[in-house]
C-alpha cells in the first residue's frame, strides 16, 4: 500500500466548487443506509476513536461528503473481515468503486496473549457480550503491546478505485462511517477486523475458561474419584408435583388419524392411568 505524500494545499481546497461538480452520484437500490440521519455518525466512544483516525487526516470536505454518501445509501455492500473492511461504493460512474480499509490483524501469539488476559477477567467478555467495548480494554491490550485502534493513519491503509487521489476519498469516508455504525452495535466487529470473529473468539475464551474450571469428563482424568459422585446425588423427587398427568397432551398439535380419531384423545385415558404409580413405589 503506497500512500501519497503531498505538500501544499489539497486539490479539494484549491477547487472546492469545481470538485463538487465533478459528477452526480448514481442512485443505488438497496444500498446500506446510515442509521444516523443528521449530525455525527458513530455513537459509541469506540467508533469515535476509530473515526478520529480519519478526522486527524484533515480532509473535512471529503468526510462530510462521505457522510452524505453513507446516508444516501451509496455503499452497495460492506464486509468487515480480518485485516480489511471491503466495500463496493456507487459513485458517479457506472462502475462502482472498490474501497478497502486495511488493518493489520494481530498475530496468533498476540491473540493468545489477548485471550489469556480476557479469559482471566470476565468483565471484558461480559461487556462485549452486552454490546459494549469496555473502556479499559485498551489497557489490557497495551500490556501485551497491542492497540485495538489504528495508531494514526499509518496503520490504516486505505485505497479506493475512484480517480480521486485524496485519501480518504468520500467513498472511503462513507465506508468508514458505515463501519463505525456497525461497531456501535457489534463491538465484536472491531475484533473481527483484528483477526478473530465472534464465534471463534468466544470458543477460545470458553476453552480457556473450561480448562480452568477443571471439570474433566474423560474416565482417564477421573481415576481419583472413580466411584464417587461429582456433585451430591439429588434426592428423589417429591411425588406428584403436576396437577394432571395428561396436561402435556394439551400442548401438542392435533394428530388426526385415518379413522378421524385424534391421537391425543386416544392417548388421554392412558396418560391418566400413567398418573397412578403402582402402590409401593419403585424399586
Amino acid at each position: 500500500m503506497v500512500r501519497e505524500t503531498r505538500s501544499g494545499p489539497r486539490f479539494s481546497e484549491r477547487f472546492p466548487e469545481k470538485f463538487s461538480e465533478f459528477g452526480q452520484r448514481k442512485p443505488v437500490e438497496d444500498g446500506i443506509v446510515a442509521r444516523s440521519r443528521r449530525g455525527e455518525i458513530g455513537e459509541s466512544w469506540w467508533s469515535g476513536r476509530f473515526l478520529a483516525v480519519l478526522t486527524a487526516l484533515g480532509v473535512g470536505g471529503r468526510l462530510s461528503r462521505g457522510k452524505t454518501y453513507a446516508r444516501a445509501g451509496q455503499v452497495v455492500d460492506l464486509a468487515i473481515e480480518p485485516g480489511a473492511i471491503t466495500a463496493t461504493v456507487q459513485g458517479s460512474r457506472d462502475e462502482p468503486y472498490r474501497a478497502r480499509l486495511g488493518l493489520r490483524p494481530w498475530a496468533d501469539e498476540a491473540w493468545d496473549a489477548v485471550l489469556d488476559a480476557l479469559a482471566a477477567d470476565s468483565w471484558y467478555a461480559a461487556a462485549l457480550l452486552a454490546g459494549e467495548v469496555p473502556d479499559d480494554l485498551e489497557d489490557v491490550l497495551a500490556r501485551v503491546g497491542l492497540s485495538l485502534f489504528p495508531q494514526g493513519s499509518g496503520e490504516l491503509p486505505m485505497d479506493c478505485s475512484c480517480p480521486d487521489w485524496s485519501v480518504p476519498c468520500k467513498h472511503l469516508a462513507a465506508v468508514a462511517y458505515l463501519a463505525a455504525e456497525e461497531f456501535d452495535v457489534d463491538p465484536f466487529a472491531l475484533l473481527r477486523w483484528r483477526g478473530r470473529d465472534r464465534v471463534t473468539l468466544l470458543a477460545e475464551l470458553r476453552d480457556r475458561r473450561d480448562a480452568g474450571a477443571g471439570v474433566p469428563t474423560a474416565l482417564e482424568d477421573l481415576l481419583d474419584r472413580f466411584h464417587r459422585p461429582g456433585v451430591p446425588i439429588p434426592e428423589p423427587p417429591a411425588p406428584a408435583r403436576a396437577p394432571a398427568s395428561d396436561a402435556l397432551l394439551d400442548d401438542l398439535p392435533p394428530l388426526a388419524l385415518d379413522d378421524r380419531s385424534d391421537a391425543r384423545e386416544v392417548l388421554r385415558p392412558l396418560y391418566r392411568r400413567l398418573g397412578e404409580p403402582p402402590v409401593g413405589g419403585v424399586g
Partner: protein
Amino acid sequence: MLALHALWSPGRGVCLWAEDPDLPARSTSRARRGARPHPFAVPAERLAAVWDIPTATAGVAVLALPSDPDAPRDSDDLDRGETGPHAGAPVLADWTVPVLELPPGVGPPTPPEGTRASPSVAALRAVDALAADLVTRGRLLPAPDEDDGGDAAKRSSTRIDRLVWRPVLQGPDLVAADTLAAALPPVCRCERVPGEGTASATGVVEAALAAAVDAHARARITGTEELAAAPDWAHALGDAPVLGDPAPPGALVAGLRRWAVVGAPHAGPARASFRLDEVVADEFHHALDDPEPVFRLTFALQSAQDLSLTVDADTVWRDPTALRRWLDDPAEVLLGELGRAARVYPELGEALRVPRPGGMDLDLAGAHHFLAHVAADLDRAGFGVLLPAGWRAGPARLGLAAAGGHAERPDGVVETGAKIGKDDLVDFSWRLAVDGEELTDDEMDALIRAKAPLVRLRGRWVSLDADRLRDGLAFLAERRDRPTVGDVLHLATTHPDDVPAPLPVESLRLEGELGDLLAGGTTLEPLDTPSGVRATLRPYQRRGLSWLAFLAGLRLGGVLADDMGLGKTLQVLALEAHERAEGDPGPTLLVCPTSVVSTWAREAARFVPELRVAVHHGAGRADPAGKAGDADLVVTSYGTLVRDTDDLAEIAWHRVVLDEAQMVKNNRSRAAKAVRRLDAGHRLALTGTPVENRLAELWSIMDAVNPGMLGSATAFRERYAVPVERHGRVDVAEDLRRRTRPFLLRRLKTDPTVVDDLPEKIETVERCGLTGEQASLYRVVVDEMLDKLDDVEPGIERRGRVLAAMTKLKQVCDHPALLLHDGSPVGRRSGKIARLEEILAEVLAAGDKALLFTQFAAFGDLLAPHLAARFDTEVAWLHGGVSRKARDTMVERFQSGDGPSLFLLSLRAGGTGITLTAAQHVVHLDRWWNPAVEDQATDRAFRIGQRRTVGVRKLVCAGTLEERIDELVANKRALADLAVRDGEDWLTDLSTDELAKVLTLDAEPEDPEEGDDDDGA
C-alpha cells in the same frame, strides 16, 4: 462384606457387579493385551444369589477400572481391613467382570442386607426415580423407535416397527437430569464396548432415563382397561412393542415426529438473576462470629419462561457442556447478561474481574444499597431478583411511634382523674417504627451505629431511606423534654399531615387515665352524685359526669351525644354542681332552642336548686352582663344569641353549653358564627344526633367546642367526608372515630353498659297477609303507576307520581277503604287488621297497654271506633286535630292507672315530645321508611321511667313494598349512625325497573281464616 456396584451398559442396560474382599487382590494373568479377569469380582452365580432378582440374567462385561499393573484398585467401598500402599498413580485398564443384567428399564433394587453399596447404585436408582416421576407427571411422549441400528433406509421410511415412550425433559426436569449427569460416578459408565469409547455421563443418564421411562410407562398401562379399549396401534405402547398388522395409521409416525419437536429439551430464553442472602456460616459451615453482617449476592441463570428454573453461575462454570443442551451458550448468555446488568449496577463490574464470576460479597452498606435501590432497578431492567422471605426491595415504611404514661404536675405530684391539668407533664417517649413495627431500644441503637440504614428486624433485613431515617433520628433527639398533657392530647387528635414531625405518627399509646380518655373514657372512675344534686345519677350518668369533669379539668371541649332520654340535661347540671362545690368558677351560658328555654330553667331548679339560674330571652330582656354577674347559669336561645352576640361576647364565661347542638351543624350559620365569638373557658355540646346527614355536621359541632381540632373544613372534607361518604372507606371512618373518641361520648340505649340500667326493647317485624281484595287493588295501583311513569321525564313530576303511588300502596296494605274513600265497613277486608286484632287480644289479656302508630289519620279514624267496638274498650286517638289541652289530658290519663289501654297515635302528632312509659307495647301499623322517625316514636314508651321490657312490633304485609323496603331499611340501619337521608326521596330516585322490582306484589293473598272470630264491624 461385599461392595456392590451398578453401571449402565449401553447395550444391556443396568448391570450389577460386586467386589469381594476375601478374593485375591492380585491378578495372576500376565496378559499384556485385552481384558484380564477381575481377580476379586464376585462370580455371577453368587451375584444372583445375593441380589435375588429372578428376572436378571448373568453375563460378563469388560470394565475399564483404575488399576495398578497387576490388579484393579479396590473401590472406595471395599473394606479389606488393611490397605497396602499404592506403588504409583493408577492407570485405566480393562477387566472382565461377571455382571447381573437387569431387565430393560429396571433400576437397581435396594441393596441386600450385609452388603455395602457404592454411590453408583444410588446414582442409578436416582435416575430410575426421576424416570418414574416423569411418568407419573405425564412428562413423556410416544415416539417411533428410530434408534434402530443406524439403518438409514429404515429410518427414512414411515414403516416403523416399534413405538417407545420418550421422556420429555423441560424446565426443572432438564436441570434435574443434568444434575444427575454431573453426579454420576465414573464407574457407572466404565464398560468398554469394542469399537467404541466409554459413554459420556450425559449420554448414560439420557439412555437410562429413556429406558426406564419406557419400561415404567409400559408397566403401568399394560393390562388396564384403558389400554384394552384403545386402538391397535396404541398397544405398541403397552405390552406389545411391535406395531403389527394392520399397519399403523399412516399419519401416526409423521405426527409423532412432529410431537417430538414439542417435547424437545429446552428451558427457553434465559436471563440473569441475582439472589441476596445473609452469610451466616463460612464455607466450612462454621458460624461467623464477625459482628458485622456479611451478604452474598449470587449470580444465576434463570429461565425466562419458568422462573423456578434457576441455575447458579457456579454450576454454569462447572459444567457448561451439560447446560449447552438447553441453552446454546449458557456461559456467554450469563456473561452477556452480567455485562448488561453492570450498566444498571456498576459495582457489579468489579465482581466480574475473575475468570468465572459466581457472585459478590457485600457489606452492610453494599447490601443496603442493593436492597434500597439496585434491586428495583434490576427488576425494571428485566433481571431476576431473589430475596429471602420477608426481605423486600425498596425502602421500608418509616414512621414514629409514641408512648406515654402518667401525668405529673410540674412540681412532681402525680395527678389522677379530673385533677389532671392541661399543663401537667407526661412521661413520654418517641420511637421509630418500621413497617408499623416499633423498634426496641437495641434496634434503635443498632440503627444509629449502623454504617448503613439497614436494620435486622424480627429476623429479616429491612432497608430504610437514609434521609428520612436521619430526619427521624434528629426529631427524636430533639424530643427530650416531657410534653404537657395538652401537647399529647393535641397530638392524639391531630391528623398526621398536620403534625410537625418529619415522619408520620403511626401509633400513640398512652397508659393511665390519659390513655383511658383516648380510648373513649369508658373506664374512668365514676364520680359520685355531687351533693347539690337532688337526684340519684345512674351508673352510666356518673361515668358521663366523670368524663365531663375530666375534660373540663383539661379545658378540652366535649360533645355529649347520648341517646335521647338518657339524661344529658342531668349530667350537665351535675357537672355544674360538682364544680361549684369547690368554689365559684364563673357563669355558664347555656344556649338551647327557644322551645326548651323554660324547660331548662325548670329542670335546673328541680335538680340543682342551689344553682342560680337566669333566663336571657324574650322581649324586654336586660343587659346580660348584669345577669351573668349574679347567676351560675344563664339560659338563652340561639335566636337571642344571634341578636345579642356583641353583648354576650363581652362576658368571660366559665363555660358555654350548646344544647341541641345540631343547631350549629352548619358552620356558616349565624348561630355557629355567634358561638365562635363567645369567650369561654370550656365548651360543651349536647346532641342526640351528632351526625344527621353529613359528616361535615360532626366537624361543625366539634369545631364549635374545640376550635381547630379537626383542621379546616376543607381539609376535613378531603380527609374524611369524601372518603367515607363517597367511597365508603371504613378505615377512614375508623380513623375519624379514633381521633374524635376522646371528645365525643355517645351512649345508646342499647349499649351493654346502659342496658343494665334500662329495660330491654324487643323489636319484631310481624308479617301479615293481604286479602284478595287488597291484593288485586295493590296490583292495579302498581300497574297504573308503572304505566304512567313510562312517559314522564325524571324530575319533580315523576317523584310526585312515585310518592303518590307508594302512599296508595301503603294505604292498600292498611285497608282497602283508605284507597277507595267509600266509607265502606271495616269488615274482614284487611290482613293487617286481622293480625293487629290477634296482637291486641294478647296485650289486653295480659292487662298491658299499647301504643299504636299510624301515618294515616284516615286509618286512625277508621280503626279507633273499630277497635273500641271489637274489644269493648276505650281507645284514645291522638291526631293533628286534637287540641294541646286535650292531648295533655289524653297523655295524663294513659299514664295513669285507670286510663285507656290502647292509645292510637298519628306518627306526626304523637311521634315526639311526649312520654308514654305506661305502654309496654308499641305497634307500628304502617312503615315509615326512615328508621329514625320510627325509633323516635317507639321511644315514647322506651324512655327513662320505663321499668319493663317494651315489645315493639312493626306490621308488614308480606310480598309487598312494605316487606321489600323493610329489608332495605334494615340494611340502611347499619349505616344510620353515619348518615341516613331523610324521608322517602331515595325511593323516588329508583329507576322504573328497580321500582317495578320493589313494588310488584310477590305473594298470594290469604283471606283471614274463617271462624277466627266474630266480625266486629
